[in-house]
């Protein structure tokens, strides 16, 4: 059977399942809805406008890449990320937006395929042998409401999710050192495009405290290769910083001088909840200190728990889950569409845990909330913000996920985790 007929048979098999048909129809609806909303309301107010301008400025006026007067909203990412947007900048803006979102649709198909492959690779033995349940969860990902804002704003979360999943797949599937390098380089490229995965870096280090022998086990060579692989692509930006010194200055000014007071928004990160609280009650605050404090506490707890984990082969999944959860809890702006980076990892964890594990309840409830209810609370925030400007529901379920990941790593009852 050739690839084409295998593909068609597979699609037919999937299409026979009602939930898959619903998922495709709903996801297509999100795509077309985003196009309509873009042309009616969001043409001059979306994130893609920044990406589109960035590609053009990179080509024609690179020294002004961080001149924020060029943009509606600040451009904060690494300069090399602009290369990624150059092909879109060549097209007219409207066509570029549509083409970009067509790519987003294709990426979601690729994400579903790679997610399926990872799940099959790490699925715990007591799960059903067929892939019916796997397909249900893939459909939950595709039907997730965060896709709506991801498409409407022309966001790049699907690109990041794909890179994260591909690197995860490589880390799990291949143990050879060269593949560890490849996996981490892919992760590094995702950080160039958007630094969402930056908090995943500490979890690439293979460091574990052996409680019985009371000593730290550190796999230096693999950790070093992984760190080198992830940092190397990011360091390429410094060639540009060296060639164009104003870029370095602009990058620093945009990203590291944000100590001004900030207005209210519906971000569900802990940092933003604190900032909103201070804003509401006129408490003097420095948002940079708040950010550092939250990273230190949440990130510190996550990393310590990761080091104290019970032995396991697939600990990288939980490390990635920790890294993204820490990013969403700590960084100022955590929006509904950023959850698209987390939900696939939560789905993988659901299948890596025993079928009837108690912990799955927490993960499942978080997944359902993120996929179908978080967006509603964004709407509710707009109604109640004059009195109560806290979109805390997403934060609550992120903390539930964080606690569930902690339980997965340290719980004695989970014996499915294989030795390193």
């Amino acid at each position, binding site marked *: 059977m050739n690839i084409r007929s295998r593909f068609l048979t597979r699609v037919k098999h999937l299409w026979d399942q009602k939930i898959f048909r619903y998922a495709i129809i709903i996801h297509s609806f999100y795509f077309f809805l985003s*196009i309509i909303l873009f*042309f*009616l309301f969001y*043409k*001059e*107010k979306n994130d893609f406008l920044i990406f589109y301008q960035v590609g053009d400025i990179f080509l024609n006026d690179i020294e002004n890449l961080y001149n*924020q*007067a060029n943009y*509606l*909203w600040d451009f904060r990412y690494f300069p090399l990320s602009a290369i990624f947007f150059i092909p879109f900048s060549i097209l*007219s*803006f*409207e*066509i570029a937006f*549509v*083409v970009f979102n067509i790519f987003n649709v294709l990426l979601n198909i690729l994400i579903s395929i790679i997610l399926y492959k990872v799940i099959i690779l790490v699925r715990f033995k007591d799960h059903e042998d067929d892939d019916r349940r796997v397909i249900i969860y893939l459909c939950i990902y595709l039907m997730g409401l965060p896709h709506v804002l991801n498409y409407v704003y022309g966001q790049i979360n699907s690109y990041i999710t794909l890179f994260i999943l591909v690197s995860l797949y490589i880390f799990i599937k291949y143990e050879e050192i060269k593949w560890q390098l490849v996996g981490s380089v892919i992760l590094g490229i995702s950080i160039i495009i958007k630094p969402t995965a930056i908090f995943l870096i500490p979890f690439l280090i293979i460091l574990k405290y052996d409680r019985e022998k009371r000593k730290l086990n550190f796999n230096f060579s693999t950790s070093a290769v992984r760190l080198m692989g992830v940092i190397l692509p990011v360091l390429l930006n410094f060639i540009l910083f060296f060639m164009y010194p104003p870029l370095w200055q602009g990058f620093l000014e945009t990203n590291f001088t944000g100590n*001004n*007071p*900030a*207005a*209210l*928004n*519906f971000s569900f990160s802990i940092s933003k909840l604190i900032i909103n609280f201070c*804003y509401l009650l*006129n408490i*003097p*605050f*420095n948002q940079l200190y708040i950010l550092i404090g939250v990273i230190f506490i949440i990130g510190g707890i996550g990393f310590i728990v990761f080091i104290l984990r019970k032995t396991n082969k697939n600990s990288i999944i939980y490390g990635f889950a920790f890294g993204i959860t820490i990013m969403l809890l700590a960084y100022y702006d955590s929006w509904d569409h950023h959850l698209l980076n987390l939900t696939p990892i939560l789905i993988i964890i659901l299948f890596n845990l025993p079928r009837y594990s*108690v912990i799955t309840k927490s993960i499942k409830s978080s997944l359902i909330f993120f996929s179908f209810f978080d967006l509603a609370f964004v709407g*509710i925030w707009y*109604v*109640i*913000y*004059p*009195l*109560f400007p806290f979109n805390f529901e997403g934060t609550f379920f992120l903390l539930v996920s964080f606690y569930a990941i902690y339980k997965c790593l340290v719980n004695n*009852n989970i014996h499915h985790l294989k030795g390193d």
Partner: protein
Amino acid sequence: MTNRLKKKEFIIGSLLFFILIIGNISNVFAVNYGIGVDQNEGLVWKCNVCNNAEMDNIFGSEWDSSGIFTNLSKGASMKWKINSTEINSYFFRVEYDIWYWDLSDEWGIKDNSSQINIFVDPGNYSTNYFFVDYTSLAPFLLPIPVGEYLGGLSVILNDWHDVDNRVLPTLNVEVLKDKIYPGYPNKNIKIIAIYNDRGILKSYKLYGKENTVIIDIALNFLPIYVIPTLVGLVVVFSIGVAFYIIKKKSTPHSP
């Protein structure tokens, strides 16, 4: 084979046609700005914080003797009554009566009448513009849709300003010491001005050293749906928690 080719050509052709059509449709839509206040409408702002001593230090002792901050003090309110709104090709003109900041609940006779002129097209403001005519350095009224108007202003305003219209239409202003003229302001200040969807200043906060709030002014109006929604949310949340606890207690603990 020919049929398959035709089918492919049809799909590709349709896709290209779709892209071209929407590319053209996009030129049809343009933002039409308007004014969000109505004739005879009353607007009241309340001052929640006013550090007079610090304002004296920053703007000199005359800062509250004229302009929008006349007689400003903590707990005082200011009222506008909109007399007329007029639109021509270039300007929005809003004429209003004003009752300056006062602690009394009785408004009595108006203190003054004034008018605001705003360009219909934000692009008509001169480059590096700042709201020098306003003591507050941020307008109390803007055209609607306010987010788009602020977006248009963002490329015109000077580098003291940072427009954030992603969530709530917000104008951030940071003015360094001596930037307007020597001794004015006498210290670095930051302002966050948030507008409601009718273009009316909803919240104005002026920050001084170490982000201390020196002035906090808020529109004295709460939409009717806010409290019922909040109460509903608290009730639903409480029921949810209670339900969870009851269920948890009635379920035997599993290892």
